């Protein structure tokens, strides 16, 4: 599905150079549930962003479905993100100007989906994450855990082939965390959704089919 080859990511500021990823090669197979673990600052989010085509590596190749993304136009990348990907950010990234429902509808907005259908699907996704009663709220009126659940609803609403989740349960209590984990496992098992999840929780990682450990930008397992 997604194949990374010799990926390197260097962050340069005027004073320091950080090697956030060092020669990572990784293939995510279709239908797999992969988890990524590692200490804080080791490059997990960076890796996930590169997989989701949200950031460019300094070196190395990315291919999706056998095609190198170097040949992708802006439009093609946009379509890929829109139809194949669902991203759950570590810091939620909701649009504060829009109510919860509109936030969740966002991926559908850039597809050919009618307004009614959008509302129906978004409502369904929100109900799945237990937020059916917060649809008219604005993000600023939600707790951290609720925001995270909105972000999850937004990622699953379009039924993407791949979900990239950056600590999706990091801000949730264990009960809620388990519930979200259930949702992801179900998507993986029943719909065959490919999932890549960053987590700090060994128990969560155990429930996935494969584990990748990072240390200081390098893959150690």
């Amino acid at each position, binding site marked *: 599905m997604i194949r990374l080859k010799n990926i390197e990511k260097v962050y340069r500021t005027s004073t320091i150079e950080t090697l956030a990823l060092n020669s990572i090669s990784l293939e995510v197979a279709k239908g797999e549930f992969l988890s990524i673990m590692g200490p804080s600052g080791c490059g997990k989010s960076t890796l996930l962003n590169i997989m*989701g085509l*949200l*950031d460019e590596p300094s070196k190395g190749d990315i291919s999706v479905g056998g095609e190198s993304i170097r040949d992708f136009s802006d*439009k093609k990348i*946009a379509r890929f*993100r829109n139809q194949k990907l669902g991203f759950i*950010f570590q810091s939620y990234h*909701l649009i504060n*100007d829009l109510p919860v429902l509109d936030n969740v509808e966002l991926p559908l907005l*850039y597809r050919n989906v009618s307004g009614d259908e959008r509302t129906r699907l978004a409502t369904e996704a929100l109900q799945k994450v237990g937020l059916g009663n917060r649809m008219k709220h604005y993000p600023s009126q939600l707790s951290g855990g609720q925001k995270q659940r909105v972000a999850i609803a937004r990622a699953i609403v379009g039924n993407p082939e791949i979900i990239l989740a950056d600590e999706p349960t990091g801000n949730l209590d264990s009960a809620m965390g388990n519930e979200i984990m259930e949702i992801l496992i179900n998507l993986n098992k029943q719909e065959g959704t490919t999932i890549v999840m960053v987590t700090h929780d060994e128990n969560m990682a155990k429930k996935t089919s494969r584990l990748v450990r990072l240390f200081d930008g390098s893959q150690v397992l």
Partner: protein
Amino acid sequence: MFKNYLKITFAVLKRRKFFTFISLFGISFTLMILVVLTAFVNHLVSPGYPETKRDRCLYIDKFEQIDTLKNSRRSGPVSFHYIKNYVSRLTSPERIGFSSFTNSVNAYVKQTKVNLFYKYTDANFWKIADFEFLEGKPFTEQNIANNDFVIVINDFTRDKYFGKGVSVVGKNIEIDNVNYRIIGVVRGCPITRTYVSSDVYMPYNTSKKDYMRKELAGEYIVLLLAKDAGDLPEIKAEYQSLIAKLPFRNYSDKWFKPNKIHSTADTFIGSFLSQLTHSDGDAKKHYVYLILIGFALLFMSLPAINLINVNISRIMERASEIGIRKAFGASSRTLTYQFVIENVILTLIGGVIALLLSFGVIYYINNSGMIPYADLTINWKVFLTAVIISLLFGLLSGVYPAWRMSKLQVVQALKGGE
């Protein structure tokens, strides 16, 4: 998709009330000021009642005698003597009339003292200015020959001192201790039309001053009416050749021996500019027009600049929104469209508000009596130009930062776009 853009736009405008207010206020307020100002300028310079023939008219309102040796000069309006013996010899104008500068005087109507503006004019004045007579008629050559003490008043004066709409022809009014018989009532005109505006008009020969005295300087403005606007240059030239042949006055004052005379017959705008630039205004006209147009464009770009400013900071502020939208499948082009539509809608709403405000302000000016007989109108050309310029700049200022933002890596945009 367009419907979605609209929906998003209104959601954003509604949600960011303060920003929306600032932008709308900026756009509509500057547009409104522009419209009202141009309405004023338009009112001042374009032909309006009763100077409907202004584009066929030239004015001689200044006569300057210069002593180049002692570098001194005397200038002012012209005398009856000068008009009668020199100006009236011009053959190219269709008509030559004159009126005095407007002065104010105490008048008595039925023992009540009132302050009025007055002008002394000749009979031709009434054939050059197109006054509408509500009652009676203007005075004629015959009245002047007969030394009739007759007077034309405007409706403002009539309403104020005799009663609204009453018939006053034949009644008397005392101006400067002289008794006049009212011969006609005209519909008044705004005071900004200085060459023709007054409360009352009297034949020049009823003036108490020695209007016959043999002096070139006096208190009159000459109005020259051409048969056709195309004849104006010829009339100007003929007047210049007349000036060239004028003898210099020999004043008893040994400190002032004029050896040069300067006077021009100018168009309305030209005479206005002559006074500003101390030279032949008509010659400088194109130059000054350019400057004026430059100023107008500059002023029109104010709402646009304001828009650019607000836009750029607004879009920067929404970097993370752009990042989020991109992460979920918005292409750069889609995002740019969205911001363009937001800007267009904002500008259009601003334009509508500006128009309503302008109507309000102009209606107020016209009806408040601040300027009697003010007849300001909205200059649609200026308004539309300003709206179009605002739209254009709104587009550019929206497109450029949005486009630049949308080119950013999503991660960078999410972090605020640095």
